[in-house]
């Protein structure tokens, strides 16, 4: 039931969907409250987010800093564009690796689904090349670890 889907759409979008048992209000709050974000937006095991700034208002700043506790880390910055409690968040984000990646515009929708929520996250990248690079380098933290694993597979 909680199956995640990840697919490309058109030339510049990536769409992720996921269902949650909790109602939209709770899922929405977990996406904007820094104390809550720090508990889950972590990527692979072993990574933490010691710095989380989330000013949930139009134009408000976003800054997430991740570390693997062994000296490796990177951060993401962004800005909120639109917030419709508890149904929709639009924000722009970029990774710093350390050079900033092109802006990724993300629309996250929270639709009631029975007693729970259907979340639909739609990313819009500036062009197909950027989307290709993003998919190839990984959207989440600590993808180097995954690369290492992938190396072993090929």
């Amino acid at each position: 039931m909680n199956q995640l889907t990840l697919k490309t759409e058109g030339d510049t979008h990536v769409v992720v969907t996921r269902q949650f048992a909790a109602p939209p209000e709770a899922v929405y709050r977990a996406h904007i409250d820094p104390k809550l974000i720090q508990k889950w937006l972590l990527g692979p095991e072993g990574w933490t987010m010691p710095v989380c700034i989330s000013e949930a208002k139009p134009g408000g700043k976003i800054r997430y800093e991740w570390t693997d506790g062994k000296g490796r880390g990177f951060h993401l910055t962004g800005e909120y564009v639109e917030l419709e409690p508890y149904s929709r968040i639009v924000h722009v984000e970029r990774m710093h690796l350390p050079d900033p990646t092109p802006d990724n515009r993300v629309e996250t929708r929270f639709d009631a689904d029975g007693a729970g929520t259907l979340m639909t996250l739609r990313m819009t990248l500036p062009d197909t090349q950027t989307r290709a690079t993003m998919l190839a380098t990984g959207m989440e933290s600590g993808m180097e670890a995954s690369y290492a694993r992938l190396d072993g597979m090929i």
Partner: protein
Amino acid sequence: MKGTLNLDAAFSALADPTRRAILARLAKGEASVMEIAKPFEMTQPAISQHLKVLEDAGLVARRVDGAKRPRRLATAGIEAMDQWLAMLREALEKNYDRLDAVLAGMEQRKKGKGEKR
């Protein structure tokens, strides 16, 4: 890079609709460049250029058959891409599994407050 998969090149190769259509054609089986070019309003050199991008990305392979060089899908490359996407999905899944736990905790606290002993 020939023969090895370059993920960045592979995803870039897939970003073009003609190249996606070529892969869809090859998914049905091996084909000559002429056969591949047929449904497209493009010159054969243009199609060959697209095929080269797909080959360099490790998604298409060629066989020598006399004077012909039929192309086919490079299964290993396609599978490696699938695996990569599966891994990406897994990283996202870990996040959302953690979010499930966070949400369950929020619900628990709310219930706790509601009881007001």
